[in-house]
Each structure stands twice: as structure tokens, then as C-alpha cells.
């Protein structure tokens, strides 16, 4: 738990400075292009409602986390702005079993909050690789930050726009790239939507 918090703080610091520590070499840009490509394919899977295939690109030990963002006093943001993974209530703090249940539920055809299915588009941008393990020549795990814009239109008139940041750990495995950890920072305090039936 502590290790994870520290890890997250590190990523947050890097995001705050806007400067990745990694040298912008041709290898970096190649890897970044691969990461972008991975996200575009992921967006296709979700927007084309290929939910089972989406589950396949999640690591079996995935941590999928969306904190609640709170209005706190200046100086308290690092400690108190976001609810914490592994503690108390967030919007999502779950594993692959739960995500699979969410997919199963949509595929019952009687999950009325997604029946009829919503129309959803994921836009992913501002992709930056913040860390590569063990190194750029032979990468097996990446820390990648990005921005998302998720547009949902539901039935006739319902529309919602979700905008925020994602902090991902991506694992490069023999069976392809897998999301091993995803932190989703939605830029809202009180959720301005009736439901979060979509995947981020």
C-alpha cells in the first residue's frame, strides 16, 4: 500500500512539472507511438462495444481506480484532494473480477442503464511516457500518462462529457500490451452525471 502511494506521488510530481525525466530519443518516440497506438486500439474496442476483447488487454491483477476529487484548502491537495486507493470509498477501486462482472452485466441485455446501449467515443491525447522499466532498449513495463475526453450520448437527449487524466502502468507481455494499473482522475467533484456505466 505504501509503496503504491509513493509510486503515485512520484507520477503526480512528474505530471506537475510537465517534464518527463526520460530523454527524448528516437527510441522514446517509437515507444510513445506504440503506446498511442495501443490506446487508439483500446478506444476502438470500447467504442465498438467489444467489451470482452477489452478485458483481454487488462492484466489479470489490474488495479482500476477512480478516486473522488475533493475541494480542499490550498496546501492540502497532495494529502487530501483525492480519495486513496485501498481505503474508503472511491468511484472505482476494483479488480478484474469486478470489471468482468460489469461487462457480463452489459451483455445480459437487461442492464437498463445501458439498454439500449449508449453511444460513446473515447479521445486520448497528451500521451507521455514517464518511466520505462528496465530500460528503453528492452522495455517490459511503462508508466504512461494521458488525457481523456469521453463523450456519451444516451437514448435521445442525454449527453455527458467526462474529461480527465489517466495514469497507467502498462506491462509488455508475450501476449501483448496489458494495462496493469489505471488511475483515472476525472475533473469533477460532485459527479455531474447520473451514472458511470462506461469504462475509462
Amino acid at each position, binding site marked *: 500500500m505504501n509503496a503504491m502511494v509513493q509510486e503515485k506521488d512520484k507520477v503526480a510530481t512528474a505530471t506537475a512539472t510537465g517534464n518527463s525525466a526520460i530523454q527524448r530519443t528516437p527510441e522514446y518516440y517509437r515507444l510513445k507511438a506504440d503506446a498511442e497506438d495501443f490506446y487508439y486500439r483500446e478506444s476502438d474496442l470500447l467504442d465498438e462495444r467489444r467489451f470482452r476483447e477489452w478485458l483481454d488487454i487488462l492484466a489479470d491483477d489490474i488495479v482500476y481506480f*477512480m478516486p*473522488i476529487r*475533493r*475541494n*480542499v*484548502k490550498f496546501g*492540502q491537495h497532495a494529502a*487530501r484532494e483525492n*480519495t486513496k486507493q*485501498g481505503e*474508503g*470509498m*472511491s*468511484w*472505482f*477501486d*476494483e479488480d478484474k*473480477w*469486478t470489471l468482468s*462482472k*460489469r461487462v*457480463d*452485466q452489459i451483455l*445480459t441485455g*437487461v*442492464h*437498463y*442503464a*445501458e439498454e439500449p446501449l449508449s453511444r460513446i467515443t473515447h479521445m486520448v491525447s497528451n500521451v507521455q511516457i514517464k518511466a520505462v522499466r528496465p530500460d528503453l532498449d528492452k522495455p517490459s513495463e511503462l508508466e504512461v500518462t494521458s488525457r481523456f475526453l469521453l463523450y456519451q450520448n444516451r*437514448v435521445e437527449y*442525454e449527453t455527458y462529457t467526462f474529461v480527465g487524466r489517466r495514469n497507467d502502468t502498462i506491462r509488455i507481455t508475450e501476449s501483448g500490451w496489458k494495462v496493469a494499473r489505471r488511475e483515472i482522475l476525472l475533473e469533477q*467533484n*460532485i*459527479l*455531474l*452525471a*447520473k*451514472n*458511470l*456505466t462506461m469504462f475509462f
Partner: protein
Amino acid sequence: MPQNEFDKLVDIDKGFVSREIFVDSDVYKEELSKVFTRAWLMVGHESLIPNPGDFFTSRMGEESVILCRDKKGEIHVFLNSCRHRGMKVCRYESGNTSLFTCPYHSWTYTTDGKLQGVPLYKTLYDGVLDREANSLVSVAKLHNYKGSIWATWDKDAPDFLTYLGDAKIHLDQALDCRDGREGGSEVIGVHKWVFPANWKFAAENFLGDTYHNPSHRSVDLIGIGPSAAAGKKGRRDDELEKAQHVWISFPQGHGVHSALQPEANEYIESFMDNPILEEYFRHCFEERKKRLGENAKLLPFVGTIFPNTSYHGRQPRGLCAWHPHSPTSTEGWRFFLVDKDAPTEAKDYLRRYYMRYSGPAGMTEQDDMENWLYATAASTGTIARRYPFNYQQSMGAYTTDHQLGGQVSLQITEQIARGFYNRWASYMRNAGWDELLGASAQNRQAAE
């Protein structure tokens, strides 16, 4: 609106409630002034403000309030608006402070609500501005009930326990420890979200609308309960499997769905996903039986304390406040509860279960929100408004001499909803507290 209009909108004897009360903006405005300024409203929980100087911003009706523990440890609830020009004096969700400093002209208020600092007090106010009279506006009454904090703006309101009446032992089931000790709960997090539906859809849902079960078919098919990984379908535990369910309408407008265990009152294995939890909850069940004896047979399900506080007594345990935003928009707040001294493993399990079940990200309640939205939206039309909602289910199928008090039904019933809207109409007619607490019509006429 003329007073008797409300009796036309709510026709309990025939079992009709006009759609106007769910969509009309005049009715809504009157609700804010007649219901939300008088009834007891739940504003939070003491575990959110454990230390002197701790505050948590909450709501009563449409308005922002500050729940705050002062320097001496006493709890207060204030309107979150400066007495000078109305600026919100606190825009943080929670925290600890010794003063609330107004951002506009810098008046400051102490944690017991007193106006302390007024810039240029001597020069511009001749040093005579009455500080006492310009304190933050405080609620008229406040009550800490087993950790949950309730308040009302009406100084003539009865004390909270009188208001709660016989619904008390049902609400207790949400607030007491799983092993039967009184109180002892803590809030482990709050969900807040806005959904486009009238607030009464949510309140009515939790009164005990068990009839809407089919809308949750999708979660029941896949299984998300505490034995789901072990292959069990459904969305909850099975503890009420052998119980006699009861649906009760209380004269104050509250309604609950609870259950009475059979004579033997045996524990039913419910947490098959995790042997440690199974052991823990079995232990709690047995302890509770020892502690409460016969009374342990009562187990909770859901309920609504009039007008807009609901609870889930078992899984996912917590309190809800349905804050009105507009006739067709509501801000839902869910305070999730666990026993403060529950083992870490149990707390961790419960929070995960609450998250996958409840609120806008919850697999069960997403379907509720869908229904509330489209039921509201499809009732706004000119033609739609001519046709009242039907509340004729289980008419007359209740007894008034049950040990649990109120009107007890042993089958799924809309009697609770009829009771709720009947009382709602009393508030809208500006009835006196005798009637609001349920004095019978005859007594009322005698008094008039």
C-alpha cells in the same frame, strides 16, 4: 396554491397521486418552503468531524450548511452564507479550522458560529455593530442520534425521537453494531452525484418499493453478492431468506421494509467468498442474538425517514440524503457505514462491495437511476400530467395492531407510499405538528 389543492393531487383513498408533484415548479418551490424548512433532515455523521474545529459542508434542501464541531467539542449546523452579503463562508468539503473567513469582505466567524472579526469595526461601524445578532444562522434544533446528525429549521418541531416514532428500531439497524451493541458506526466515504429525476422517486424507492425488483434482473443474473465468486447468483447475501418480510407505514410519513426471522433465528451462510468474513459475520449474528434476545429477530432492509433520508440497513449499509435541486433534478449523497471496530479485512471487503453495488458506479443502482430519470422525463408533458400515477397496490392489506406499530403489511405494498404522500400533503397544507406526527383525522377535526 390553495391549501385544498394538495388533497386533490394526492388521493390516497382512491390510490392516485398526480404527476404534478413530481414535475411542477410551483409545487417544488412550495415543497422547499413547507417541507424542507420543517422536517428533520439528516446532515451527516459525527465520525466526519471527530476533532474540535472539524467541519463538513452539507446540505438541507437546496441550501448549503456547515456541520461543525466547535473548540469545546460541541456540534453545530449553520447556514453556509455570510450575514454581510451572503458569500459562502466555506467552500471546502471538509477540514479543520479555527475560523471561517469570508472571502468577500473578510468577516470571520468562530467554529461556534459567532461573528468575530469585522474589518475596520471602529471606523466604519462606530464599534457598535451587534456581533451576536450577526452570527451565522443556526438550525433551530439539532440531534446526534447514534452518531448520525439531524437538524430542523423549525423551532416548534418535536424532538427528534418523537419525530422518528416507531421507525426508531428500524433505523437503529443501520446505525447499531452488527453484533447488537448500540451505535458504533463510522462513515468510510461519501458519494455525491446529480441525477435528472425528482427527489421523491429516490425517497419512495427506499420506503420499501420491493416491487421494482425485476429492474435489477441484470445484476441478479450475473451475481455480485458476497458469495458471487463462489458461484452464487443475486446481488446480496441470503440472510433474510427464511424471514417474514414486513412493510410498514408510520404515521409521520416514514416507511420501512424490514424482516422478522423465524423462531429459531438461525444464521444463514452468506459470505462464501471469504471464510474469514463468514466467520466474522456468523460471530456477530450469534453475539447479537445473545445480546438482544427476541428483538434480534428483527432485521433491516431499507427505509426512508420522511422526507428525504433513506437507509440501507444491511448491504450496502449506509444513509442517503436526496437533496432537491429542481423539480426534475436531485443531488444524491450516500454515506457508507461500517462498524468502527470491525476488523480491517471486513471493512475492506464491505467498501468494495458497496462500490460495486451502490450509486452511479454501482451495478445495482445504475438501473434505479435510469428508471427515475425516464419516469420523471416522461411525466412532464401536458397530456402526461393529466394522468395520475397509480398507487392501488395492496389496498387495505395491512394491520394496525402489529407489535411493530404503524400499518404493517405482510405482502409487497404501496401502502407505505400512500402514507408518505398523505403526510407530504399535510406539510403542503401547513398542518400543525399534531397532524404531521400522525394524529388521526378525527382528533384533528376535534381540535379544529
